[in-house]
């Protein structure tokens, strides 16, 4: 009986210690981790010897699975609500009717099908993949401050789009996405290699600063182009703020392959990322082929962050915020953390979109601004309490 109680507590102790350890300096982290791993292994070995029943663990898994299902249900409800809100409020029953037996003569059905449904779908997809990308980056680099926006990937995508509009006279949203993709990929590689220079490999500080530098570079280039070209400025300024308004189903269909591949790759990384988040040496010791894990994770991040920017423009802080919230709920097991992040991210972005639409009716605040205003204080809070030196 006593042993069962102990078994329940072990994950929480382990989680919080590792979580705290991740925010200390590198040297201390390694020392702490070694101690921690020794401790945990010892306890685990004793436990395994004394209790042959794996019951508590299964129960935890069952609870997590139920939680995930509930969260998915909540997401669906909120997505329906989001479709209801708008210039003309539509009853939930009409929403379902428009989905399952579409009436081409009804204006309300038309509004739902062409305007509101794509919008909420984009919000959900973008939220999910940005949070996934953020979680992967945080796990891989063991950097609690990693995020596609902070690491400069989104500013690179923005520069790509602005260049496309100015020099190739591209007008359609669907073609923007290719350039957004290219920009995101180039900057992701650049920031990571820049942040890994010098001693100690990619530390949080170096990566964040490399990201900030690349952001500064890309955004001054972007604004220079926009200064010289008023028409481009007018076309692109709303896109630059990050918004999910005015997307059609075709755009979603275009980016779906990347989204699916990226998500599958990301979810398949769960086990490896859990090991990697303990440190590269430990991961190698546990039998991970760290080189491959890194390559796959990098591909997943570029696919996910790239298609997120292609769909909705640069949306900051979501990838930072969601993994941290989810870590409080599910702990550091990436096999659970990743799906939770996907659902949580979708939920957060759909809600942020509703907030942006409701708060200053009839005007709209772009959802990218809403997330930055929610996430910025969270980032500062994290730095304030987690960064010791």
């Amino acid at each position, binding site marked *: 009986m006593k042993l069962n109680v102990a078994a329940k507590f072990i994950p929480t102790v382990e989680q919080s210690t590792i979580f705290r350890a991740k925010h200390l300096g590198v040297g201390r982290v390694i020392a702490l981790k070694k101690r921690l791993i020794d401790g945990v292994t010892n306890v685990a070995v004793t436990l395994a010897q004394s209790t042959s029943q794996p019951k508590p663990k299964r129960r935890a898994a069952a609870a997590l699975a139920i939680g995930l299902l509930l969260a998915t249900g909540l997401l669906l409800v909120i997505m329906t609500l989001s479709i209801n809100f708008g210039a003309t409020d539509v009853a939930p029953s009409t929403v379902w009717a428009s989905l399952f037996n579409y009436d081409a003569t009804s204006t309300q059905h038309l509004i739902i099908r062409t305007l509101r449904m794509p919008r909420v779908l984009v919000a959900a997809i973008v939220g999910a993949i940005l949070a996934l990308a953020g979680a992967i980056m945080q796990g891989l680099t063991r950097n609690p401050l990693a995020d596609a926006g902070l690491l400069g990937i989104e500013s690179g995508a923005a520069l790509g789009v602005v260049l496309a509009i100015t020099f190739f006279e591209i007008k359609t949203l669907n073609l923007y996405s290719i350039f957004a993709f290219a920009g995101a990929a180039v900057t992701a590689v650049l920031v990571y290699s*820049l942040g890994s220079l010098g001693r100690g490999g990619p530390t949080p500080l170096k990566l964040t600063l490399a990201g900030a530098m690349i952001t*500064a570079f890309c955004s001054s280039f972007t604004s220079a182009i926009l200064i010289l070209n008023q028409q481009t400025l007018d076309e692109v300024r709303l896109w630059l703020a990050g918004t999910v308004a005015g997307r059609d189903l075709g755009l979603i269909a275009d980016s779906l392959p990347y989204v699916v591949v990226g998500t599958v790759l990301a979810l398949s990384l769960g086990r490896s990322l859990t090991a990697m988040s303990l440190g590269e040496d430990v991961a190698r010791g546990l039998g991970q082929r760290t080189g491959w894990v890194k390559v796959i994770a990098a591909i997943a991040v570029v696919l996910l962050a790239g298609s997120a920017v292609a769909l909705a423009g640069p949306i900051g802080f979501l990838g930072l915020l969601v993994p941290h919230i989810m870590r409080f709920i599910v702990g550091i097991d990436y096999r659970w953390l990743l799906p939770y992040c996907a659902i949580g991210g979708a939920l957060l972005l759909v809600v942020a979109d509703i907030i942006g639409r409701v708060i200053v009716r009839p005007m709209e605040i772009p959802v990218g601004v809403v997330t930055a*205003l929610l996430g910025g204080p969270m980032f500062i809070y994290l730095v304030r309490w987690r960064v010791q030196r």
Partner: protein
Amino acid sequence: MKTFPWITVRPKHARFSLRIDRRLPKVGLIVGLLVLVIMIVNMGVGEYEISPFDVVKTLLGMETGDPQHVLIVRTLRLPRMLLSALVGLALGTSGALLQGLTRNPLADPSIMGINTGAGLVAVVLTILVRNFPARWIPVAAFAGALVAAGLMYVLAWRKGGDSPMRLILIGVGLSAVGSAVTTLVITIGNIYDVQRAMIWLTGSVYGRSWVDFWAFAPWVAIAVPLAWFQARQLNSLHLGEDVALGLGVNVGRQRAWILFVAVALAGASVAVAGVISFVGLIAPHVARRLVGTDHTGLVPTAGMLGALLLVASDWIGRTIAAPNEIPCGLVTAVIGVPFFLTMLYQHAKTK
């Protein structure tokens, strides 16, 4: 006899002593001459071409045979050139102080939220409060920079003192929030106002007059010497907090004071010339190559190099796409980043 790398100034009756790096006078002289030459060449180019000799003659008050030269050189172009040199000086000095303070080679006013604070205020005033007098925008921008820096310091401070790492990361966070709000204002504003604000956000010394120069000069005249006097405190701080405490430095107060000087310089520059990035980042790095890591030599040299960089950028921006003009803030970013990357790469290789 062994030559020491320092020149020591220690007056018998005065209560101070100075130690200057031996390389400083030579480097300072060369950089200063370069700044002068580029300024003179730059004053000659433009819509109305004037030969460098005529520029010098006009500056010295001699006749050149063209009565327009006096107006063009003295009233139109000279204040702009002097201003760009001073802005560069201020930014370079500020960058050297911030890098020394945070002990981080990537610190820079544009990364640490100071520029964003100023930029946000200016954009809001330009776009939302449409008939806000343009004269007061610099003052408001300066206030914005101060508020941002103050906020950064307060948020990074907690029981047990401040920490350079928190300072810099909170700066990055504030900067991101600030730019989100800036973006919001840009999406809703009138397109003409937005474009005006964008020029300011890139940083330019276009069309600055003697009025602007005299508004800015006092800041430099007061804060730059202050920065030079802080240099030796920076040396102790640079050794680490514990060592600095052991050497008798009041670490908390000294840090706050240096931060204040750095912010005053950066804020005043943003107010007068807009958001010019990378000068504060690059100048100290080059200075470190030239005179070493001692801050008594580093801070002045970084200032001089900042002036050189900005004057050269302004010259490039004026000539490269003539008759169009590229804002010098953009030129600094375009030459700054590749330069910085190669430098980091070499640095990593030698390690």
